[in-house]
């Protein structure tokens, strides 16, 4: 280290944009001193498709399919968030059964997103087995969701005023098998990974973000909760059914990679609880209320926030009174979560970069929009 302060032997390394551990097309320009990082500049925008611009060129209904293509791992949650935002701005009522179905699907989607993250994260750290387990479970889940949504990833299931179709027998049977299996697997994951000394050594005390730094950096979601802040939009600004449901907000203490890992695994359990409660109380009735073909909010601006798998999604809608919005901003959680890297990485090893980046759980198409 002394040598590094005397002479400049640093060199640049491009990590990505094509690299399996960058979870999409993320490009990290690293300045290295041997194995240690001196400087990091994330370069993003490779999958920028202009969703906000598209939203400002079409009616609110026409934009609905776009929502699932931002965060493709939490497409149902983005669907749900967008519908809730438009329904609140336009005063569209939703039948109770539809809202229950939406919450069930959103929480299943959260489990699916965390499962994919879990598998991919362990793969980043060199463990192949957990990946196979996680994808096995996720496959069951995708099959169940596919029964009613008709798609695997880029769902477009929610509608203004409800959902596209009612639950069917195959969905209910699939879910009945999935929940106990997922619980057994969760126990396996803890045995296999959480108590694994190699895993613990790779993640504990690595990439520590304390609560103040996390808040100043605009963190939200599991990353913020791992730093010990129990902020969850479902609690802070309750929407949909969440005030009636009984669930906990898992938090960590140290804000390191290990805590971020544990928070997500615990959230899978909480999401299972929510799904069970919603299924138990599922009311009978319609799943779609009549809504205008092209809802038009009164002139003004509307901000709706939603807790997605990666944190707070904010949909800021500015209406001039026409069918096409004047402005639609999507504040996405990964954008802020990723922006902490330039201050977090210096001084760490390249191998830890992978551990830290993975633990933040970024989805690039969400960031790039």
């Amino acid at each position, binding site marked *: 280290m002394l040598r590094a302060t005397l002479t400049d032997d640093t060199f640049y390394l491009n990590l990505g944009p094509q690299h399996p551990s960058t979870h999409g097309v993320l490009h990290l320009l690293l300045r290295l001193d041997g194995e240690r990082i001196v400087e990091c500049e994330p370069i993003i925008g490779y999958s920028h498709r*202009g969703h906000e611009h598209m939203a400002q060129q079409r009616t609110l209904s026409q934009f609905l399919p776009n929502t699932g293509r931002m965060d493709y791992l939490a497409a149902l949650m983005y669907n749900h968030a967008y519908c809730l935002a438009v329904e609140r701005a336009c005063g569209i009522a939703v039948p109770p059964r539809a809202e229950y179905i939406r919450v069930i699907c959103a929480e299943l989607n959260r489990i699916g997103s965390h499962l994919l993250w879990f598998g991919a994260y362990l793969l980043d750290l060199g463990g192949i087995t957990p990946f196979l387990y996680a994808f096995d479970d996720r496959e069951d889940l995708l099959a169940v969701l596919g029964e009613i949504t008709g798609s695997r990833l880029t769902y477009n299931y929610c509608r203004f005023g409800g959902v596209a179709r009612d639950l069917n027998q195959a969905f209910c049977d699939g879910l009945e098998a999935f929940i106990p299996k997922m619980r057994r697997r969760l126990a396996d994951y803890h045995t296999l990974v959480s108590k694994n000394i190699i895993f613990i050594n790779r993640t504990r005390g690595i990439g520590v973000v304390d609560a103040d730094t996390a808040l*100043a950096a605009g963190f939200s979601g599991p990353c913020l909760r791992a730093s010990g802040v129990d902020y969850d939009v479902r609690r802070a600004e309750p929407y949909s059914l969440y005030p009636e449901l009984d669930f906990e907000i898992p938090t960590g203490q140290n804000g390191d990679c290990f805590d971020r890992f544990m928070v997500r695994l615990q959230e899978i359990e909480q999401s299972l609880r929510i799904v069970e409660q919603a299924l138990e109380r599922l009311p009978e009735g319609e799943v779609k209320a009549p809504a205008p073909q092209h809802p038009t909010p009164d002139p003004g601006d509307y901000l709706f926030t939603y807790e997605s798998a990666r944190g*707070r999604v*904010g949909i800021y809608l500015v209406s001039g009174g026409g069918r096409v919005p004047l402005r639609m*901003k999507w504040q996405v959680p990964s954008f802020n979560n990723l*922006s902490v890297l330039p201050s977090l990485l210096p001084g760490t090893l390249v191998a830890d970069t992978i551990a830290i980046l993975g633990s933040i759980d970024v989805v690039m198409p969400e960031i790039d929009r």
Partner: protein
Amino acid sequence: MEAEASLHELKRLLDDRCGSLSWQEAEPALCGYSHTIWLEVERLRCLARVLADSGLVLEFITAVDRGHGLELVYFFSRPAAGWRLKVALRTAEGQPAPSICDIYPVANWQEREVFDMFGQRFDGHPDLKRILLPADADFHPLRHDFQAGEQHDGDHFDLERD
């Protein structure tokens, strides 16, 4: 009650340190924030300092272009307190706004995005450059006068630039 008390305290603090501001009440159950503060560009940094000292977080920055200058919008909130402030200011064509990224680190990328999408400059930003569009793009796609299609003839971007 606690939320109201903390909001009242904040009002007093802001009046003390930044001069009186115009607060407009909003309907949180409909539009997601409790108050709008309209202010001049010069007072933004003073306000941001007070908010940061009071423990408010900056959620995001964006802009709205209605065709006559830009409207910059900042959303601040206190985690879990259940209220949110919208701070809005207008900039004339070409007029820079002060950067607040030394006060709120999260503003760094947020301001870059507003610059990228709207061409708004921020004085004092350490590295104000494009963030989502390629570095050699010569347009700002969320501006009022932007027409999609003209710029995208396939070979607009010089991919060999580096």
